[in-house]
């Protein structure tokens, strides 16, 4: 947020945006540079080498950490720049060429993309991209207008319309168009029906419907009741509670980012990174045996990377075989003592961290929202943060569960 400092006060403000941009570029270059220098990754000098290069970089611990997340942050910090049509249109064209052009250079990618199951994925990608650009563009214009004291894009419009005919007609037109699209779609693309279910040979990989691929990806990292019941319930309670937690009166009826950055960042992270990106992962990167494959890698079910998973209690008590972590005294007999580190960590993360946030970086928010609203929001917020944390720990440390109590069917 630019401000005019009063006379007599130092007007110097560090060029934050430039520094953030440089840091993001350096961060994104880390895997490429290290893999090219220290690894055996080929420079993309031919199409085959480009394909191998992309496959290596698309393993999730690299692509989510070093590519999708910085890109997401950059899209948020530089929203005034990239939403300009002169930048956004070339970006869209390059992405479209890359997305559909890959079908020409690789048969496996073609096989994924041309499956009737996956047609909605393409529609989702382009639809989400366009709508995000549209909203961010209006927010960028509005924020600039607010800064200069000009009226908002929406400000001069009368926002009241009549239910009949304005709203009902609009809905009627939408119904007709949507029905037409569905009818044409169902005529042109055959339903992807398969053979009757066979307990001897379930499909490999067995994929959920496309819109649940994000949930299926979550299930890889959590116990079923956690990823299948608790976390989806928290998504729903969070969505329900969001308007009641939001005490910021700004942004009602107009697009803005600068007046409510936290909640927009939150929403975008939950929706774009933890839902859309995970659907893309599930579609393009998950192959047979639910292993990761690069987008241009043949789905060979006999390729079986070993990935022994280790519980936090193992790391803590048993460390001597595990690269020197831990105490090396062996697992205690008592299950509560055994899982004590994980239980302490989980309680501290889910309930201690919100208190810490209220006392430190989110103090202003805490004062504005009040305790009940703030803790409702903060507990949902940190548990949403636990998702990527657990994923990264699984990829990097092959961590299985923080708390592992199979005796009680309780694993976290």
């Amino acid at each position, binding site marked *: *947020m630019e*401000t*005019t*400092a*009063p*006379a007599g*006060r130092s007007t110097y403000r560090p060029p934050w945006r430039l520094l953030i941009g440089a840091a993001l570029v350096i961060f994104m270059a880390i895997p490429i540079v290290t893999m090219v220098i220290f690894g055996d990754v080929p420079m993309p000098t031919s199409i085959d080498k480009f394909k191998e290069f992309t496959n290596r970089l698309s393993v999730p611990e690299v692509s989510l950490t070093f590519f999708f997340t910085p890109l997401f942050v950059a899209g948020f910090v530089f929203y005034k720049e990239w939403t300009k049509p002169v930048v956004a249109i070339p970006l869209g064209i390059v992405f479209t060429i890359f997305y559909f052009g890959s079908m020409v250079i690789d048969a496996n990618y073609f096989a994924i993309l041309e499956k009737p199951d996956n047609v909605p994925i393409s529609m989702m990608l382009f639809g989400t991209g366009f709508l995000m650009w549209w909203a961010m563009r209006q927010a960028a214009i509005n924020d600039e207008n607010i800064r200069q004291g000009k*009226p*908002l894009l929406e*400000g*001069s419009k009368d926002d009241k319309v009549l239910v009949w005919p304005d709203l009902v007609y609009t809905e009627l037109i939408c119904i007709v168009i949507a029905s037409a699209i569905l009818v044409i779609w169902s005529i042109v693309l055959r339903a992807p029906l398969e053979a009757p279910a*066979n*307990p*001897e*040979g*379930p*499909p*490999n*990989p*067995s994929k959920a419907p496309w819109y649940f691929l994000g949930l*299926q990806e979550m*299930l*890889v*990292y*959590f*116990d*079923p009741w956690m990823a*299948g019941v608790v976390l989806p319930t928290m998504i729903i309670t969070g969505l329900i509670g969001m308007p009641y937690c939001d*005490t910021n*009166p700004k942004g009602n009826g107009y697009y803005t980012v600068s007046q409510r950055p936290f909640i927009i960042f939150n929403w975008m992270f939950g929706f774009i990174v933890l839902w859309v990106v995970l659907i893309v992962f599930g579609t393009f990167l998950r192959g*047979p*045996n*639910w*292993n990761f494959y690069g987008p241009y890698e043949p789905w060979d079910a*006999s390729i*079986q990377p*070993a*990935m*022994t*998973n280790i519980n936090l209690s193992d790391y803590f008590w048993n460390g001597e075989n595990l690269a020197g972590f831990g105490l090396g005294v062996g697992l205690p007999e008592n299950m509560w003592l055994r899982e004590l580190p994980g239980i302490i960590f989980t309680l501290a993360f889910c309930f201690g961290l919100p208190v810490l946030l209220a006392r430190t970086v989110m103090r*202003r928010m805490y*004062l*504005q929202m009040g305790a009940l609203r703030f803790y409702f929001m903060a507990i949902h917020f940190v548990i949403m943060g636990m998702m990527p944390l657990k994923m990264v720990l699984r990829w990097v440390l092959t961590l*299985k*569960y923080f708390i*592992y109590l*199979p*005796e009680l*069917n309780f*694993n976290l």
Partner: protein
Amino acid sequence: MATTHEQVVKVWIEPGCIVCDACETDCPEVFEVTEETCLIRPEAKSADFTKPLTPSIQTAAEGCPVDVIKFDTVEVEGEAPWAGQEEEAAAAGAPSGGGGGGGAKKGGWEPPEGPPDPAWAGLLETSHTSGSRSSGGPAVRVRSTTLPAKAPIEAVTAAVPDDAPPDALSATMVGVGLARPSASTAESIKAKGEEKARKTGVGSRIRIWLLLGWGGLLFCGATVGAALQAFIVPKVTKEPPSIFKAGKLADFPDVAVYEQFKGSQQVWIVRQSDDKLVALSTICTHLGCIPNWWPGDAKFKCPCHGSGFYMNGINFEGPAPRPLERHRIYLDGDTVMVDKAYLYREEKGQWDDANSYVMV
């Protein structure tokens, strides 16, 4: 006695601002709240600028929850140009819960009741930010200093720009003393209810009935819930016999996973390297998919979420929280029999049970 009034000539902010936005809401001409602190706008450094803004600066200073807004004043001869509004601010400062009663006005002129539209009244109520509530004044004091007190309604209407927020007009009217804020609908309902309860003494009786009502509802709910749990487990099941013949002992000569009953019985017969013959269930302990046996890697691997199990059924990769389950296996003569009605779980120590394996 000569009439004097105070005018603000200098405003400054002491350390300790909690950036609550209250002052900017009360007096946006002077205060600007940034990410870290509150600033005095450069133009507000001059006394000429701040003098006409005296009332809203005073409101902001009173409304500051941490009292860091300080100002210097001078005494000026004559009636203050904003005299009417000051009273109005005082009137609005009275708790509005009591039906919005304002004090008696100088000169006996009682402003008309605020806009009768409850939506407008509600907007007025909700327009307060938390900080400015303490001052009690209307949150939006649009151009309160440029309008003469008790200006005609037409002048106020003309002064409020068309694109101002919907509550700006009513707020301005309140600001210049043409109207006083009416109580919100919720507050007037509550006040009326309290008054009635006080008169009739009905409140305590209602509370008893409420308690009885909720108690009864909870009791009925608990009863129905307790009754419903009887339906969770089926009382009658039609299942094929749980026992099947798996063949002779000689049919399992090598250490291997035998898959001939995977499709028909959902059981793998596994001859382990310690010469135990066990019957492993093919149901993944994560979410119930059916894993595949990969002889080359010597592991079961689930196609749904990637859970992996060793040949003996122990889970070692992916999300599966516990090992595959064993069924009861026993010898009838030299025929291997498997009874799927029994389950043996490793994490409960049941794999030591002699019924869970057959020594070859």
